């Protein structure tokens, strides 16, 4: 949309002025007023639409859809359970901490479903204290219940669950927007879609490397730096020191060791020193031996915490965990500051993509691909070609027919059709709506309806002439009588098109947009402009014969 129209006040003023002008001009019988009005509308449309398509590097005003210019269309599903699990896990950890802090003995705290957790084996004397602690901490969003001997359960409320889901989708959309910006795509579309609202539509016009796009879009990119307790070549040996079970505040994460292909398991502190949220920036760099690495800097609060913790843990290993995988686990040599680096076995491209996703932030949940559409640029070009050939063929036929059948009045119809097409294109260019291949079909169909309007009027005029009316009376009656029919036919067609627009997706929407705009433009062009032309050409004088 042009910048002037993004200001709602300007837009409103312009629309009001246009409306007032229209109403005023329609009320006047005066031909001169109408000439000025219609002329300026069409002139404005011409300016808005020129040049319509890209030529010699000058971008066209009409935005082409994915099917015409090539690109990628993806539908992703947000795995909302991830976000619910994470929230419930947080609550479980808080509960554990609080129980320890208040000195309440509990056997276990565990998540029982994505939206519920339970505290078991609470010492009988302290059940009430534990309940108060829970009620205090989870005052909103959770329902805490006593469920038998020494057992408390907490269930997420439906309202909170719904809010969480909405937040998750919104956050995922914002993250994707940042990532797509990093890819440098012009005019991307990123929006919630689907019946349940848990799907995201991503359209990247002009992008052809689908693999890269998908890597950047769907990588969860959860980064955290965690202290290493021990590491071993297998899970069993790793846990032999702790009696085969993972301690409450620890976790086991796999990673690649010093020799490729041999996995290493790390026992890590569950709480990270820093996470992806603490990053201020991330970019690609090279290390001393020219291998790619990722440089990142931390924000101020995280820097304080990080330098305090690293100072306290010198000579221990710090694992860099990305999406549940240890990338590397360097030994802390000294107190670390705001600027740090991640080294690993990256290719330059991997490092570059990783820096982009780290900078854009992590996704709140896993994304699954549901639908993927790629259109190669040459297929798009051929489609434009066919679309244009078909339109030109259809239009030339209509033009020839109208002029042969209705003679001079037919010329009038051709002018009206051209005006209709011009307005339709101008609105498309102005509103930034995409012209798709079904959209071109919509244009052709609009032309069909436009011809129909003209034919209705002309046939009516002929009928009136047969009944012995004068030329002026026949024209006036013809237009007047047909107006109700035109209103009814257009209203029903617009109702159908609005349904398509509101509920349809992708190509159907593009088709509906052109149809609605075309129908409205048609009333203006084939009725009002056409009527004006008749009156203007015939003038005020007495006319015996009408060329129809």
């Amino acid at each position: 949309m042009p910048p002037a129209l993004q200001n709602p006040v300007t837009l409103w003023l312009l629309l009001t002025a246009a409306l007032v002008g229209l109403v005023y001009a329609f009320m006047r019988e005066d031909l001169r007023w109408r000439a000025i009005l219609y002329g300026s509308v069409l002139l404005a449309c011409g300016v808005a639409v020129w040049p319509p398509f890209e030529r010699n590097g000058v971008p066209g005003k009409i935005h082409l859809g994915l099917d015409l210019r090539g690109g990628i269309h993806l539908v992703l599903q947000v795995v909302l359970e991830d976000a619910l699990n994470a929230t419930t896990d947080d609550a479980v950890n808080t509960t554990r901490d609080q129980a320890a802090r208040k000195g309440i003995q509990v056997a276990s705290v565990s998540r029982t479903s994505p939206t519920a957790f339970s505290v078991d084996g609470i010492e009988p004397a302290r059940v009430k204290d534990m309940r108060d602690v829970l009620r205090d901490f989870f005052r909103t969003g959770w329902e805490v219940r006593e469920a038998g001997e020494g057992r408390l359960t907490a269930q997420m409320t439906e309202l909170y669950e719904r809010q969480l889901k909405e937040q998750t989708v919104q956050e995922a959309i914002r993250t994707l927007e940042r990532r797509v910006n990093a890819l440098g795509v012009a005019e991307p579309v990123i929006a919630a879609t689907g019946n349940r609202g848990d799907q995201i539509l991503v359209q990247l016009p002009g992008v052809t490397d689908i693999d890269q796009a998908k890597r950047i879009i769907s990588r969860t990119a959860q980064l955290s730096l965690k202290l290493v307790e021990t590491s071993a070549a297998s899970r069993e040996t790793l846990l032999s020191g702790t009696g085969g079970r993972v301690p409450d505040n620890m976790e086991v994460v796999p990673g690649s060791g010093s020799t490729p292909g041999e996995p290493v398991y790390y026992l890590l502190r569950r709480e990270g020193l820093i996470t992806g949220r603490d990053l201020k920036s991330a970019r690609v760099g090279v290390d001393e031996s020219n291998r790619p690495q990722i440089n990142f800097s931390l924000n101020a609060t995280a820097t304080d915490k990080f330098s305090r913790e690293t100072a306290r843990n010198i000579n221990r290993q710090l694992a860099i965990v990305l999406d549940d995988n240890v990338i590397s686990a360097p030994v802390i040599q000294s107190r670390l500051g705001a600027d740090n680096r991640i080294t690993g076995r990256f290719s330059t491209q991997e490092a570059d993509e990783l820096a982009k996703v780290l900078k854009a932030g992590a996704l709140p949940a896993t994304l699954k691909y549901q639908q993927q559409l790629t259109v190669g640029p040459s297929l798009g070009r051929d489609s434009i070609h066919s679309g244009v050939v078909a339109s030109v063929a259809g239009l030339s036929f209509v033009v020839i027919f109208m002029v042969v059948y209705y003679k001079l009045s037919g010329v009038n119809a051709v002018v009206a059709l051209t005006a209709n097409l011009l307005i339709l294109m101008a609105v498309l260019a102005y509103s930034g709506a995409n012209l798709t291949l079904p959209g071109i079909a919509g244009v052709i169909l609009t032309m069909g309806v436009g011809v129909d309007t003209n034919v209705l009027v002309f046939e009516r005029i002929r009928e009136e002439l047969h009944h012995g009316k004068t030329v002026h009376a026949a024209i006036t009656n013809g237009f007047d009588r047909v107006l109700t029919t035109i209103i009814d036919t257009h209203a029903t067609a617009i109702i159908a098109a609005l349904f398509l627009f509101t509920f349809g997706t992708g190509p159907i929407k593009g088709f509906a947009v052109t149809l609605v705009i075309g129908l409205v433009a048609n009333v203006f062009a084939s009725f009002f402009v056409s009527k004006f032309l008749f009156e203007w050409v015939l003038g005020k004088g007495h006319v015996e014969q009408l060329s129809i």
Partner: protein
Amino acid sequence: MEIIKNPHFDFLGKARYFIALSALFILGGLALMLTHGLAYGVEFSGGTQLILHFQSLPAVDQIRAAIDRTSPGAVIQSYGEPSQNRVLVRVAQEAPESDLDAPARAIREELARSYGQNPVLESSSEIVGPIVGAELRQKAVYLTVLGLLAQLIYIAARFRGGAWGVAAAIAGLHDILISLGFLTLFQYEITLNVIAALLTLVGYSVNDTVVVFDRVRENLAKRRKEPLPSILNDSMNQTLTRTLISNGTTLLAVVGLYLFGGPVLRGFSFTMVIGVLVGTYSTVFIAVPFVNWWYGRQATGAKAARAA
């Protein structure tokens, strides 16, 4: 120039034969749909569709031999003009949610391996997971039904009688059923574009019906003494030239779209060609006879229609 001078056809008198013909078409179409099933395009059925652009003229047989190794039962056909070197490959096999690309990648790799002399320059793909497909199918049906219902209500309100709205809606439904029958007969797939065409043809059919109804309304007001059937017949005759010219030009435009619009729009334009023909037909032989039958059941005929 005039196409027909003062036409006086007895459309209503012949209506019963055409209604029988319509019933035959609809039943035949339904039988065809039930036995063969509707061929859903990849966006509805789920699966993978690739449009591969080869460097030189592709040998479909060799491609089929190569692809059969990884994905047996794939549909392989040349796409668009032969000179464009394009081949369409469709695999019905469900793309796994964890790796939607897997079937497409397998095909591309197999082609590079055993048909390497003619490399793929560009590949366009459409990969649809099962959930999206089912949702879209459901939505398409809702769209059609709700769209028709909204038009029915508008017409009923404008003509002050439910019969008019119902007549237009029945005609629209009739057109959809017949078009679906033809789509099945000629083995076109139901794609999103075809759904758009079906919804448009409903709009077009209703549009055509409304033009005649408007004339009927005008004549009912003017000629208060005449019986309803003769008014209906006259109204259709009076609008006949318009019907022929308007629908004729639109028909030629969509035929042009069918011939020159390229392979992406073929299903769409085929549906529109059928739709324009059937939409015109259904006004004269379905919608108007329905109105006649409805008000004819009431003893007062035209009076009831006028009161409406």
